[in-house]
Structure formats: C-alpha cells, structure tokens
C-alpha cells in the first residue's frame, strides 16, 4: 500500500532517496518522462495533446522533519540537531532510526530519579537529549553511524478507529500519495501535467524553487498535509482544519496569498461533483507554493491540503476519506482545465 510505504520511508531534508525510489517506481509506468534534477526533485511529466498547450504543476514535498547526528560522545551516544520545525518537548523516549542503514536507537535523557527538583518541573531542552544506539563507546558507534546522518522516528503506519490512519510524515507523504495516485489513474489531459516531488521543503521550500524555475508552469498547486487542531484544549477559531471535513483550501499563509481564481475554481468543481471541502482557518505556515509563485515573472499558485493532526511530531493522524476526497478534487480540477481552460 502506497501510503504505508511512503510514510515509513526515510526522508529527512536532503536525504529523500527512499521516498524518491518508491515514487519513481510507482509513477514511471504512467508518465512520459521521469527524471531527478540536480537538487534531488523527482519530476514526472505527462505530456498534453499539443506542445504549446498550458503547463500545470502539482507539487508535494518528499522530505519530513527529523534530526541530524552532529556529534558522537566518547560514551557512544549521539548528539543531534533538529532539521525542520520540531518541538523538542515531543522527543524524549522516542524510538528512532539513524542513517541509511536504519540503525535503531532511543532518545534518552537524564532519568527522573537523578533530576534535581527544578529540572523535573521543566520539559527537557534539546541540549539535554541524546540518541542511544546501544554502542559501548565512540569507536563502536562510529562503525554504525557518521556525522550528518539523518534520523527518523520509528513509527509504523496503521489504520485505526473508523477510517483513520496513523503514521509519521503524513506531512507531506499524503500530498505525494495524492499526486502519485492521480498519475496512476492513467488518464491524460489536453495540457501538460508536471508532477514534482520536491526536496527540502521543511528547511525553506528549496527544491520547489529550482523545479519551478526549470519547468516554468502556467499554474501550480501544492498538495500538503496541513495542521488540524480540532482537539481538546484548542479553541474552535484556532482549529485551522478538521478531520473528515474534506480537503482544505488555503486562502493565505505566511508564504502565499493564494490566487483566488484558483481557489474559486476548486470550490466550483468541488460543489459540482459533490466533493466536501473546507477553508483552512489559519493564516500562518508556509508551503512550496510560497516559493513557486515568485519564480520568474510569477506563477499563479494555490494549496490543497489533507487535514492532519499532530504534524511535525513522531506520529500524526489523518482521515482516509479526506485523502480520497482530495484525490477526487484534484482530478476534477484538472478536468475543469480541459473543459474551461486555466482559471488564470
């Protein structure tokens, strides 16, 4: 199952190879060209009927937030630094996998019975945490890992509750899966579809920048897994999105004022096909679309997201219906370009 394979794959920023390999295998039979560019973006092209026709880009990022090994202590434990936005309070006692060889480890910290009173009353700070891979000393650790190795959470994909799923890295493997499944439908449109699986979004949407420069699309939509804060302790006006209410359309985030012509088209096609959707009720965060829309002379851009609880943590939850509806919405959107032309 694609979503399971993708979410369990290793993909900290700059080390997205496992995700790229899975996606390449999945989309290659359905595309005219599949290439990896110099920075590591996977670019899959479905050519349109005419060479001069419009070019539509769909982008999802392959990378996930994670850690990076920065120092190996004499004792054999690893010091690390976060790559992408992680709350250090979620790290302690988590099981992790280090490097390409997936060396198992545990994030340790000073045990409770050795903590001074003021220490036990505060969450651990990054400086107090380390990864224990069971090595007896530095020499043994260095045989297994090296500085710069990425670290992911050892989280298994599982379907839970009624139609929901838990996994790490739904942000943004869920977006990758939407695009990959769209390509696998083996459909063709009149325009050229440029599917881009980007690198290094979590450290500043770097991959998307160079891909958009090279591909020069006429319109771009980023597919994302976005915050759903519909949980206890959160006030309703700060939920942003809700699980099970359909794909979330972005009007604004910190990186983009979405092209409202794209947003309106998405709403129109959703209503026409009876696909539920919601508006993202938050104006913060950023996506690949923030970079893409500023490339060259400007590219109209929007964002469609699958609502995801607990993003940027070791495990997040989505509603699989939202995934299916996002896939339907994007297919309907592409169909509308054939039927009515580009919205802008």
């Amino acid at each position, binding site marked *: 199952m694609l979503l399971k394979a993708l979410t369990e794959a290793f993909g900290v920023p700059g080390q997205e190879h496992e995700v790229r390999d899975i996606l390449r295998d999945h989309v290659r039979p359905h595309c005219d060209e599949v290439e990896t560019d110099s920075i590591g973006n996977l670019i899959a092209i479905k050519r349109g009927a005419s060479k001069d026709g419009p070019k539509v880009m769909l982008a999802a990022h392959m990378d996930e937030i994670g850690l990076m090994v920065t120092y190996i202590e004499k004792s054999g434990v690893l010091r690390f630094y976060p790559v992408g936005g992680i709350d250090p309070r979620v790290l302690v006692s988590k099981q992790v996998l280090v490097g390409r060889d997936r060396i198992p480890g545990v994030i340790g910290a000073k045990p409770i019975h050795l903590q001074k009173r003021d220490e036990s009353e505060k969450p651990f700070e990054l400086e107090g945490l380390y990864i224990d891979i069971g090595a007896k000393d530095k020499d043994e650790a260095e045989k297994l890992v090296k500085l710069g190795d990425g670290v992911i959470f050892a989280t298994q994909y599982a379907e839970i509750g009624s139609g929901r799923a838990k996994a790490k890295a739904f942000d943004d493997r869920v977006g990758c899966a939407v695009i990959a499944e769209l390509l696998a439908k083996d459909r063709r449109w009149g325009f050229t579809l440029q599917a881009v699986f980007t690198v290094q979004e979590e450290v500043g949407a770097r991959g998307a920048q160079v891909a958009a420069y090279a591909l020069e699309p006429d319109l771009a939509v980023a597919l994302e897994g976005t915050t759903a804060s519909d949980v206890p302790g959160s006030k*309703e*006006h700060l939920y942003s999105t809700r699980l099970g209410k359909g794909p979330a359309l972005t009007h604004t985030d910190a990186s983009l*004022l979405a092209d409202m012509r794209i947003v309106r088209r998405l709403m129109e096609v959703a209503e026409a096909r009876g696909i539920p959707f919601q*508006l993202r009720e938050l104006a*913060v965060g950023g996506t690949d679309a923030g970079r893409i829309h*500023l490339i*060259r002379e*400007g*590219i109209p851009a929007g964002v469609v997201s699958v609502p995801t609880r607990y993003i940027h943590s070791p495990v997040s939850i989505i509603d699989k219906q939202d995934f299916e509806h996002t896939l339907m919405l994007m297919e309907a959107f592409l169909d509308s370009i054939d039927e009515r032309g580009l919205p802008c």
Partner: protein
Amino acid sequence: MKELLKKLAEAYGPAGNEGPVREILRKEVEGLADEVKVDALGNLIAARRGPGPRVLLAAHMDEVGVIATHIDEKGFVRFSNVGGVSPYTLLGERVVFENGTVGTFGTEKLDDIKDLKFAKMFIDIGAVDEKSAKEKVSVGDIAGFQRDARLDLGGRVIAKSLDDRSGCAVLVQVLRELKGRDIPNQVYVVFSVQEEVGTRGAKTAAYGVNPDIGIAVDVTGTGDTPEAYPMDVSLGKGPAIKVKDSSVITHPRLRQLMVDAAREKGIPYQLEVLERGGTDAGPIHLTREGVPSGAISIPTRYIHTPSEMADLSDIENAVKLIVALLEKPLGEKLL
C-alpha cells in the same frame, strides 16, 4: 497631485486585493506610457520605451490589513494580520472589506492589556448570528483600514496607506511630467503588489522588466517626534535618499547620482539609514545577475496605522528629484 493622493490613500487595497488601486492607477497612466500591462501576480507595469538603460521605478499598491480566519456561531469574525499590524492599533478602529462591509474590533476579557493578541480579538461586523455574518464575510476575505484622508492641515497630511500610495502618486506625477519629453533613459514604472507580506510582487516584476537600475519609492520612518528612537530623518526636510535598510544597501554610485541630481537642482534631500524594515529595492537588486538599486523615501510618521502623516513638500520634492535623476544619462556612469 493632491487630489490623486487623496483618492489613492482612501482606496481599498490590502495585500493581495490591490484591484481598486490598480484600476485608479491604470486610468492615470494610460496615455502616459508606451505600454501598460498587468503581470501574473497583479503588478501594474507602465513602460516608456526608447534608447538608454532601463530604469525600474517601483511603488507598492498594497497596504496592511486583516484577514478573516473563522466566523463563530454568534457572527463574530476571528482574524489574523496581513502585513505588520499591531493589535493595539486595532482597538477602536474600523476596517472595511472589499464588498463594503464595515467592522470594528472587540477582545476577549484580558487580565492585562499586554496579553492583547490577534487570537484573543475579533471583528464585529454587527451581524446577529453566523448566517447573517457569512452573507457578508467569508473566511479568507481581507479588510483594510477605513479612514478618510485629510489634506487640509496646512502643509502636512494625515491618511491611511500613505505607505505607499504616496509613492504611487509620486510615480504617476513623474510620468505626467515626462510626457512628451525626450530623456536619455527608458522608464518602467512598476506599481507592485504584496510588498507588505514580503516584497513579493516586485520580485516577479523585476524579473520580467530585467532593468539596468532599480529604484523603490516608498515611505520611511522619522526621528522627529518626542523621545523618538534616534533616526536622522524629519518631516519637511526633503525626500530621503536611502543609504540602507534591512533589505538593500543602495548602490554607492546610484546614491551619489541621486545626491548630485538633488544638489544640481537645489532640491532639499536627507539621507536615510533605516535600521529595520525593507522595501521593494530588496528583491529588485537581487534579480537575475543583480541590479544596482536604491530607494527614495517619503518621511512618514505613524507608519502602519490608519493615521500616517507626511509633508506634502517632501512628496512634491520626491517628484522633482526623480525627474532630475531621469534627465541624467544613467547608463555608462553607474558601474
């Protein structure tokens, strides 16, 4: 120009919603340029072609505002900021949405005014319930300050959005004064979008224009009010030739050319060192292989409030300074 400044300052135009301002400006510049176009992001570009280097002059059309993020069951509209707005500025203020809906601000109970944050505030549009609120405002709608512009204070003006409609008015006036004249430079006036959310429009416009020289015309802060943060810029002492801000260091040759132009024509000017803040010159100078760039600023008090203040003489002298600069052959001398 006063009439145009009033019309522009009073127009609705928060970032991403520059349509009404663009329409005013489009009507003004048609007939003053060889080509007028709107690019993919909404920048309005008026080009005066001919021989000589391409000089890009940019003023941004957008203003700061607030964006509706949630509408509750009682019809209160939760919001976030678009650009640099202080929650304190909003108390007692009125904003207007593009469709004319007006609202004011309320807050949840606060133990301390220091706890005032956007997440604890709401816009009250006078709706009695969720349904009637949603008939007027949708999530994603953006509102700007609602304020009339007062140009009858004497030499000074109070208005919202002098940042940067004063710059827009200056550039329209520059085109008016250049009409029918031969000058040794090509002029590309860019009325840019989305400056207040990160100088976004200027980035794509500069890529498209591919200029030899870039100049932003925008507002800057002053240090001439009681116990102000030290800054050697005052109202009424002339347009400020930017030395640096957080986004650009004015190309030293361009800065000297602007100073020379002012001195030769006896136009008062000041030098601006802005410690924090940026302008469209930031992205312009980093475009393609790099563009020698700088900025001419209108000294302005109380920036990003509904009551910004500037001196009309500075605005008029900014026009004179830019025209004087464009009369010089700028090509060979610069690098």
